[in-house]
């Protein structure tokens, strides 16, 4: 057998899970959809002493679309989010990111919370959370519930603010406003692969002037980054190809992205800038359509 030995627990409630995690150290791991964690187990890169499988906890799998926000239970499957028309209307960026995540069979099992907690720097969902200023709710037996903004949740390569005795319970996104448009763009070697560079954008337009803009770049650093100088340059301006090209340069020129076999730092900056341009063009077009 490929995975190393571990104790295995399948709690049916969140309370049971928190009980099991209470006083836990880093040797205890939660198993969500497992689409990233199972390979780590099989390669024995992860050697948990206890594996707590939270797939049976129905109270962590739900979707609530409210007047001003969308809240999603952490164990909601990606395929459920992909096919929810209600979610597509209320927070289109989430639905649009789904087809970019692996393939159909991966999204059957993969979960929203699992992707966030895994915090792969090349993953789409953390970037969506950063772009939309999502709020993360987590709970432990010892300290009860706490919430953190996306920018505080992601802390580094595969590292989040989650403590070893905590469970990520839900994630809250703002509902898209009138006059706003969302778009995600990425470059990957093959469809379904992790992106070599990508951006998630949200733009609000009133009377042909950009009034709000947020732009998150992924696969460009150890976690998704907000391009704040670029956002400042967008707000108050009229959208144009010239503006997007300038902003794409602003957003990427000072970055020092990782290099690997598939992309040098320079190449990542170049395709990152292209993604900025593409996502802004599409977001603006959609914003105008919804005004």
């Amino acid at each position, binding site marked *: *057998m*490929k*995975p*190393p*030995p*571990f*104790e*295995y627990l*399948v709690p049916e409630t969140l309370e049971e899970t928190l009980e099991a995690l209470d006083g836990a150290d880093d040797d205890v791991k939660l*198993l969500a959809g*497992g*689409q990233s964690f*199972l*390979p780590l*187990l*099989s*390669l024995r890169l992860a050697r948990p002493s206890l*594996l707590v*499988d939270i*797939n049976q906890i129905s109270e962590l799998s739900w979707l609530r679309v409210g007047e001003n926000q969308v809240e999603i239970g952490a164990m909601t499957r990606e*395929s459920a989010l992909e096919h929810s028309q209600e979610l597509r209307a209320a927070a289109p960026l989430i639905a649009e990111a789904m*087809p970019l995540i*692996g*393939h*159909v*069979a*991966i999204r*059957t*099992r993969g979960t929203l919370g699992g992707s966030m907690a895994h915090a792969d720097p090349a993953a789409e969902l953390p970037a969506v959370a950063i772009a939309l200023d999502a709020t993360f709710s987590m709970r432990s037996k010892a300290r009860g519930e706490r919430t953190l903004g996306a920018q505080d949740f992601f802390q580094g390569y595969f590292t989040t603010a989650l403590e070893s005795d905590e469970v990520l319970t839900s994630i809250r996104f703002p509902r898209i406003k009138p006059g706003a448009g969302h778009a995600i763009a990425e470059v990957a070697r*093959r*469809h*379904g692969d992790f992106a070599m560079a990508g951006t998630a954008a949200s733009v609000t337009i009133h009377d042909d002037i950009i009034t709000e803009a947020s732009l998150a770049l992924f696969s460009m650093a150890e976690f998704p980054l907000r391009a704040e100088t670029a956002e400042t340059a967008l707000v108050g301006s009229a959208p144009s190809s010239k503006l997007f090209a300038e902003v794409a340069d602003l957003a990427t020129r000072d970055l020092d992205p990782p290099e690997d076999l598939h992309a040098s730092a320079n190449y990542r900056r170049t395709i990152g800038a292209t993604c900025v341009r593409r996502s802004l063009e599409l977001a603006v077009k959609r914003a105008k359509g919804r005004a």
Partner: protein
Amino acid sequence: MTTSRDISFHLNGVSTERSVNVRKTLADFLREDCGATGTHLGCEHGVCGACTILHNGEPVRSCLMLAVQADGTELTTIEGLSPQGELGAIPRAMKSNYAFQCGFCTPGFLISIAALLQDGNRPDERSIREVLSGNICRCTGYESIVNGVIAVVAETEASES
């Protein structure tokens, strides 16, 4: 340390009970403990699609689940697509379109196709290609595989009209 659990599930419609080591992947369990060797293992980390099966009617990578997670579920493997030893509609259409070369990737492709065509779904070529992008054929016989799916869709339409 508790190393094994008793699980019960339906495998291709047959009620099955087994004791399984908690660290065994579902793919290894199907092949080694259930004799369902039609499920193939390629990359073993979710990329190649060869081990795709239906879990409660939905396509999953059996290398990315633990066998113990199959407790209480319905599993369909490639063997389940051709009950009674006769080729089902999908394998038959693939055969007549020469959609196999070495055949290693075939079980995963057929399961992905079965999932795609469930509930009377009639995908266009674009959606067929999109879904099949999750399965890798290293003989690169993709055209004939896509043609096979198009043929199954056409056959279903013809038989219904």
